[in-house]
């Protein structure tokens, strides 16, 4: 019997009602009295020296309030980077200044050169057309390997080269790894590209800046996954505004997928300009601007080698990756190809020796940063592709080869510095095999062949590190922030609760699932609990939502704060019941004295806290409000096994997904309906990466896929129904809910399954294809078959 509330129930989402009736409150729905609009004049060349930015004619255009250029931002800070990577020689990474508006040079198509604030957006745009900009074009730095060659033109003149860092991990293991390769019975090598993607949340970014002269207070409404992080980064590092004079609000946010983590120039600009112009300033991104200004994702070029012994045991793994940073370092960019990627290279396997080399490279492209999965999809894709290739080369079953090398004992310390607390990889693989009717595949292939189609089956595993992250550990790794989370639980006199969480919900349904947790703990109805997030003036502190961290870290903080509430409430109840505190039990929203029929209701206790007439004032304060910060002691390690079946039209190269199955282990689950939805969405984005999505530049740095006319978003008819299971549960051992996180799994686990399936299909027709780079668009698949 499914539960009808609390932990484990598929409670319907309360937030849906406002979204379904058109009364959500997204940032673009906010219009301030006296608001002006900004239009950013953006570079249409990838690389060049700004020789002229003449705004004099534009300044006289109708409706213009003020025009800003790079010179206006010389006195403020550049856009900060939140993570400093130390390279294999012990040197810190090269970190260029990232100005709010370009100054001196432009370094990617879309970089803002000037900003026109006007009464209306169209007037701002008219005036922007009257700005005279001359750019002396320089050769665009596009190819990563060429960019780090001797004598290559430099993206940043003040850096020694285009190499941000050359990271080796674990450097001390390198010789042992090389030796293992010399001694290997078999080595499988694969060179591949992890394609550049654009996150494309359906809501484009928006920023509205406001300033009060009376109180010297700034307010920024912005489409962010982490308003407190924006407050800190923008206030402390860019504009010099103390946190107590800066409020950042992220109301309903229409999807994030990573790209709304980062602090962007438009946010700093609107905050700055609101004071400079003494009126609210609003910017709403067009989709075309989003393609040129939202941080992109992925874009790795990798060579991976897997060494095996004569019994097909994995003995060593070696990778060599070029990771594109784009023209500047976005907020968390340096961490993605390093600590979110190298640490996951063990995957689900007990490979004893691993060495990862990553060269991060500056190019004349939009900055690249975290996108759903961030580093972990890149790791999983390489590993699961090379394992599949090894199985083919050795003539063994790809599932059996995986099983043979699975880690089976936990906790397990990998050779890449992380310790998996729990997992059961055979269990998820068993479940997957149950789901996909493996014995029936031969018949399905025959049926496809009878229609002139090729059929392929691809399987893979994944592991990810979520619940980001232990602050002391990430501090050692270069993070310039702590990665705890906070929650304040405020109980009102009449018994209702408000939970102020630093996690941010932009589709994940926290308003529902977080309330389920508290309802379960106290034994009251979910409707008595309100979840508040996204406003720095309401929530004390927050590190936000990314890295599948909300329930594991934010949820844990909420549990800790609720425990404090319950402890205090028990004290009050013991006073009211004239019993010893240790005898007080809380069940179904009532406090009772163990072994008696004496009890007092939740509401009576909360009322007493605020009307303390009969109250132990000598021992405890009135009121019922508690805050907790939770800093995780380890990452969480969701894992799973995925399978994809495809049909390939050999005449056109078109790939159709016939079925997709996912068996995940997320540990304990709060709301199965929401978890399933998260996996669906992740799989869709993973299939999008595998088959459709390609952020492409030409050799001059022009963005070829700058709208939905050329960037292929997965549509309803590109995808099948998904078969998703999360009944395999090995609870996390180190957080109070035993949860692991589920937001990124689908995007991490699905691309290799698709590519493995397509390669399998082509090989069934005798094609000697070992790999095709994503996206496996019809033209590429057709070309691979020729």
């Amino acid at each position, binding site marked *: 019997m499914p539960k009808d509330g609390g932990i484990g129930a*598929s409670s*319907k*989402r309360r*937030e*849906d*009602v*406002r*979204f*379904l*009736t*058109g*009364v*959500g409150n*997204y940032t*673009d*729905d906010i*219009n301030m009295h006296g608001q002006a609009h900004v239009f950013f004049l953006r570079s249409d060349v990838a690389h060049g020296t700004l020789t002229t930015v003449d705004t004099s004619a534009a300044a006289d255009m109708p409706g213009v309030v003020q025009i800003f250029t790079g010179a206006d931002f010389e006195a403020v800070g550049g856009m900060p980077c939140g993570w400093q990577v130390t390279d294999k020689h012990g040197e810190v990474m090269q970190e260029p200044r990232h100005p709010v508006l370009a100054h001196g040079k432009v370094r990617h198509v879309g970089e803002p050169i000037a900003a026109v604030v006007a009464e209306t957006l*169209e007037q701002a745009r008219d005036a922007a057309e009257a700005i005279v900009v001359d750019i002396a074009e320089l050769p665009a730095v596009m190819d990563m390997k060429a960019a780090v060659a001797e004598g290559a033109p430099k993206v940043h003149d003040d850096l020694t080269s285009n190499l941000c860092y050359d990271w080796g991990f674990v450097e001390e293991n390198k010789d042992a790894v090389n030796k293992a390769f010399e001694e290997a019975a078999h080595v499988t090598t694969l060179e591949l590209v992890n394609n550049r993607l654009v996150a*494309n*949340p*359906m*809501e*484009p970014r928006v920023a509205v800046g406001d300033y009060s002269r009376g109180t010297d207070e700034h307010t920024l409404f912005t489409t962010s996954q982490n308003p407190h992080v924006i407050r800190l980064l923008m206030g402390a590092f860019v504009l010099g505004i103390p946190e107590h004079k800066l409020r950042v609000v992220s109301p*309903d*946010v*229409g*999807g994030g*997928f990573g790209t709304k983590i980062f602090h962007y120039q438009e946010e700093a600009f609107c905050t700055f300009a609101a004071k400079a112009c003494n009126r609210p300033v609003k910017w709403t991104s*067009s*989709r*075309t601007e989003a393609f040129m200004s939202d941080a992109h994702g992925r874009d790795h070029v990798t060579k991976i080698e897997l060494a095996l012994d004569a019994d097909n045991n994995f003995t060593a793994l070696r990778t060599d990756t070029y990771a594109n940073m784009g023209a500047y370092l976005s907020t968390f960019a340096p961490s993605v190809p390093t600590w979110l990627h190298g640490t996951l290279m063990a995957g689900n396997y007990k490979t004893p020796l691993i060495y990862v080399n990553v060269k991060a490279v500056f190019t004349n492209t939009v900055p690249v940063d975290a996108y759903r999965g961030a580093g972990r999809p890149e790791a999983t894709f390489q590993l699961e592709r090379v394992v599949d290739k090894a199985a083919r080369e050795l003539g063994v079953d790809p599932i059996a080869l995986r099983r043979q090398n699975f880690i089976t004992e936990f906790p397990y310390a990998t050779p890449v510095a992380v310790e998996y607390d729990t997992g059961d990889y055979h269990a998820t693989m068993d479940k997957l095999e149950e789901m996909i009717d493996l014995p029936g595949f031969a018949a399905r292939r025959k049926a496809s062949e009878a229609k002139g189609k090729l059929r392929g089956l691809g399987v893979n595993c994944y592991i990810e590190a979520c619940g980001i992250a232990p602050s002391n550990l990430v501090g050692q790794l270069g993070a310039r922030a702590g990665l705890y989370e906070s929650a304040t639980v405020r109980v009102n006199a009449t018994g209702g609760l408000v939970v102020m969480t630093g996690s941010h919900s*932009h*589709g*994940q*349904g926290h308003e529902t699932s977080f309330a389920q947790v508290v309802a379960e703990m106290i034994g009251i109805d979910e409707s008595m609990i309100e979840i508040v997030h996204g406003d720095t003036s309401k929530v004390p502190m927050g590190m936000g939502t990314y890295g599948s961290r909300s329930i594991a870290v934010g949820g844990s903080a909420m549990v800790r704060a609720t425990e404090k509430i319950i402890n205090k409430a028990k004290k009050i109840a013991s006073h009211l019941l004239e019993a010893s505190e240790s005898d007080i039990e809380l069940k179904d929203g009532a406090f009772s004295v163990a072994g008696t029929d004496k009890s007092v209701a939740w509401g009576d206790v909360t009322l007493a806290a605020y009307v303390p007439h009969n109250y132990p004032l000598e021992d405890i304060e009135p009121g019922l409000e508690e805050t907790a910060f939770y800093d995780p002691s380890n990452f969480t390690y969701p894992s799973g096994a995925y399978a994809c079946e495809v049909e390939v039209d050999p005449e056109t190269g078109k790939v159709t997904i016939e079925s997709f199955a996912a068996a995940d282990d997320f540990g304990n689950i709060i709301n*199965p*309906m*929401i978890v*399933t*939805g998260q996996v*669906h*969405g*992740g*799989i*869709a*984005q993973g299939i999008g990466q595998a088959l459709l999505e390609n952020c492409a530049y030409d050799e001059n740095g022009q963005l070829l896929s700058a*709208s*939905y*006319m050329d960037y292929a*978003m*997965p*549509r*309803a*008819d590109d*995808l099948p*129904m*998904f*078969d*998703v299971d999360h009944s395999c549960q090995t609870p996390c051992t180190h957080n109070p809910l035993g949860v692991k996180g589920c937001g990124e799994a*689908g995007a991490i686990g699905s691309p290799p399954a698709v590519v493995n399936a397509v390669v399998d299909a082509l090989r069934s027709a005798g094609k000697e294809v070992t790999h095709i780079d994503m996206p496996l668009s019809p033209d590429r698949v057709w070309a691979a078959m020729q």
Partner: protein
Amino acid sequence: MAQVSMTVNGKTASGEVEGRTLLSSFLRDTLKLTGTHVGCDTSQCGACVVHVDGVAVKSCTMLAAEADGADVATIEGQANADGSLNVIQQAFQDHHGLQCGFCTPGMVMSAAALLKENPKPSEGEVRAYLEGNICRCTGYHNIVKAIMAASGQDVSAIAAE
């Protein structure tokens, strides 16, 4: 500037518009009906779908002046008279057919148009009809399921809770 007048969700609405004013802008900025969203500039994402004279259109690709005299329906007018969710809206909530909610108004309006044309669509027909509505969150699974459920079909055989 010209005066336009239309019926929006059953009520007369009028205002001054420029030639270039889009219907989506008129709804959002003039009438403050911000449930209609704009997610792209190439007429593809469908977050802005409303009904004009009974058929689905992309309000970001129609001038307000073109809708002069028309009967317009938006997401704000879809709930039942007592304020409760209508059958399609309720099915979206029941089957978790939305996450961030941004594409949702367009999805609901397209779903309503589909079910008017085709009261019992197959899965393939639903997917084909949603060609012009992009969702980045759900992978469409639960949207398709919700629309089929709203049409009165049994969706219990479709995987997942």
